[in-house]
């Protein structure tokens, strides 16, 4: 097990290196940051010198090597846009994105699983049809449109919730949290709903399909025949057996939620990493883009690792199978 984890972590380094390399090859196409960094009166000589001294004239592979060399020493460079260390900028934005993503994922689970169970058990009930219709909207509408519609209804028309920002935050060491203030929670509702809606509908449909599958199996029929209460059959046996794919999908989607919070953060001016990344792209702020991309790659690797480990916990067969395949089956 430990060897497995270590191997996966080593692989993650390779993944991050590849991501960084591809990123630097692509940076040739995001445009020139120099004109964004100086005013229109700045002389040609100063522009050229800035370009030279930032190493922007070097080939992509040289820029990549320099970046990796510095990154290994924990130095991710200076933001071209904000003249501050990139690591500090990302660290300051990380809590906002993680809090938003976690709440969105929990909302998706807390609402998606019961809805999936319900629609699985009561296939023809009118409420199930309503749930399915709503989920279709969640899957088919683009995120920014959902965000703008929510702002229109809850901020502009009803005036209940703020349309942008994170509200008041409390600083706990370097972590800034919005969980401890009323305005923080108010500000969280709309973006978290926007971000979690797609995942919610996905989880609901997944749970529903799995439930329908499991309810047809023999052991459920036997359980019913033995007179075990419906409740215990549905939640004790059926739901438990639907969880493996749900964990996989939720885990993998968590990575996507963090990575694709970009759009939601932009619509709600949520001060997270996604907004930082988008502004970095517009500015061609190469150090910020590079650091963000490898951080996201790292998240994906770690989340995948955790998902794999959860499998072992949830499904004992995996452990047995693996042992058999490895030739160490207990005789």
């Amino acid at each position, binding site marked *: 097990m430990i060897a497995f984890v270590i191997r996966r972590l080593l692989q993650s380094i390779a993944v991050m290196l590849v991501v960084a390399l591809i990123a630097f090859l692509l940076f040739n*196409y*995001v*445009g*020139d*940051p120099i*004109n*964004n*960094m*100086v*005013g*229109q*009166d*700045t*002389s*040609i*000589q100063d522009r050229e010198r*800035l370009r030279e*001294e*930032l190493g922007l004239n070097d080939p992509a592979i040289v820029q990549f090597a320099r970046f990796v060399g510095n990154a290994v020493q924990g130095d991710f*460079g*200076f*933001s*071209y*846009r*904000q*003249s*501050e*260390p990139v690591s500090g*900028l990302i660290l300051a934005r990380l809590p906002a994105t993680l809090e938003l993503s976690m709440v969105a994922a929990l909302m998706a689970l807390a609402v998606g699983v019961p809805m999936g169970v319900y629609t699985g058990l009561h296939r023809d009930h009118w409420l199930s049809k309503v749930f399915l219709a709503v989920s279709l909207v969640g899957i088919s509408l683009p995120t920014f449109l959902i965000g*703008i519609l929510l*702002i*229109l209804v809850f*901020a*502009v*028309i*009803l*005036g209940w919730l*703020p*349309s*942008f*920002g*994170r509200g008041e935050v409390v600083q706990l060491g370097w972590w800034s949290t919005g969980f401890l203030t009323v305005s923080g929670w108010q500000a969280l509702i709309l973006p978290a709903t926007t971000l979690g809606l797609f995942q919610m509908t996905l989880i609901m449909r997944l749970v529903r399909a799995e439930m329908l599958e499991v309810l047809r199996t023999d052991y459920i029929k036997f359980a019913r025949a033995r007179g075990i209460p419906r409740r215990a059959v549905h939640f004790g046996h059926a739901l438990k057996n639907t969880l493996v794919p749900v964990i996989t999908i939720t885990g993998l989607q968590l990575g996507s939620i963090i990575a694709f919070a970009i759009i939601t953060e*932009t*619509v*709600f*001016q949520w*001060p997270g990493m996604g*907004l*930082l990344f*988008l*502004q970095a792209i*517009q*500015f*061609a702020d190469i150090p910020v883009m590079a650091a963000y991309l490898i951080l996201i790659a790292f998240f994906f690797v770690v989340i995948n690792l955790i998902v794999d480990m959860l499998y072992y916990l949830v499904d004992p067969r995996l452990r047995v199978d693996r042992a058999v395949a490895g030739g160490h089956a207990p005789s």
Partner: protein
Amino acid sequence: MTRLTSSLALAASLAITLPASAETFRWAFQGDMQALDPYSLNETLTLGTLGNIYEGLVMRDKDLNIIPALATEWELVEPTVWRFKLREGVTFHNGNPFTADDVIFSLERTRKEGSDVPTKVASIDEIRKIDDHTIEIVTKNPNPILTSDLSDWYIMDQEWAVEHGAEDPVDVRAGVENYATRHANGTGPFMVVEREPDVRTVLKPFENWWGEPDHNITEAIFTPISSDATRVAALLSGELDMAYPIPLQDGRRLEATPGVSLLAGPEARTIFLGMDQLRDELLESSVAGKNPFQDVRVRRAFYQAIDVEAIKDKIMRGASLPTALMVAPQVNGFSEELNERYPYDPEAARALLTEAGYPEGFQVGMDCPNDRYVNDEAICQAVAAMLAQIGVDVELLAQTKSKYFAKILAFDTSFYLLGWTPSTFDAHNPLFNLMNCRGEDDPNRGKFNLGGYCNERVDELTAMIQSEINPEKRQAMIDEAFTLHKDEFGHIPLHQQPLSWGKKDSVELAQRADNVFDLRYVVVGE
């Protein structure tokens, strides 16, 4: 879109305004200041907003006139020597007194590596301290527009900078954090109490400010909101007192909403088209072996084929100001008489093209930004459609500003759209940057003259304009240079683009034509 508009109108009638203390003023722009260091970036939002915190020797009022700030009076004692009397009893936000030494320190700091504003003091040879509150500024040559150059050159406190190790300007290349990036210590009417880059900046009035405040703000909160739709929604929902820019297409929605209004006025930014007249063969064209833009008839044909009034009505929603000159009325040197456009006349344009040897027209590439100027891409599309009427096939490449500027500033363009606001608000700046021959001797001459328009007489006049002290003689030279450029169709000026700000009705403020928002004029009602 229609549904969205009507629901927003409905929204307006139902809008519940969030309670806010009367004198807290909240405003939003699409981006943030890049740093609080007043020498870090020569750009409108950064310097304009910092103008509430820092002050220069002189400043601009709401009509862009030069008025006293840290200097109370000044006079030209010799053609190259100006004597400035400094205001007495002024303190910085930290309580340090303001003296001549701070001015001299600021000059040194402005000239250091990393500073983006050395051009503001480029004409200065030295600053002499006569006493604590009198200085003499010696210029290398007579400089008739010295006070314009200095209007947003801000004075920093020497002791504060030394104390916090911020003697040097913020420099990305240095790789060290600079205290002045996030902290400010000016003499202006507002001081920074909280700064979180990209999130919010909180200002409070400076109690010991030397002036008598016209505003009634007790707290001002600035939030960048990058998404247009969100910025407009936040204004409509009452979370903001003022927001800018407002997209032109949202203007009517704002005006239809009770409690908020649109402030639209012409900006001093001129939008124009440029053509490569330098190369013997265009980079992006079907014409081989010669450059059609070297023929003045072709340039004129392009000019007369473009209907700026249609662009104004259809694309700019009536808010732009068509122009025949490369400078706006707010800019020193503008002449109402010369501001007469050649008429829109596609027939004449076609005849000119035929005469020049292109009866079938030709194909040419065009570069355009899509996130830099008001409706920039739409303007380019309209231009392409209008040129198609005279047989010119325009291959439009509209892209984000980082890509667009990288391409055109490498002179890799045949036909492009660009906008320009002279930072000095004087005609010399566009003449030197846009209309002078691209120089081998001085690469900065004509550095934004991407099409390489060249007339030696214009260059000669520009050099004289730079140091001519007599206003009448100077204006005559400017007129002559502008006339030459206009008759030769060096560029095709289109319009001054509109400013578009949104505000609550209960708030009074002044809209400056340079898109600077000055808190000094804000009065928050009831």
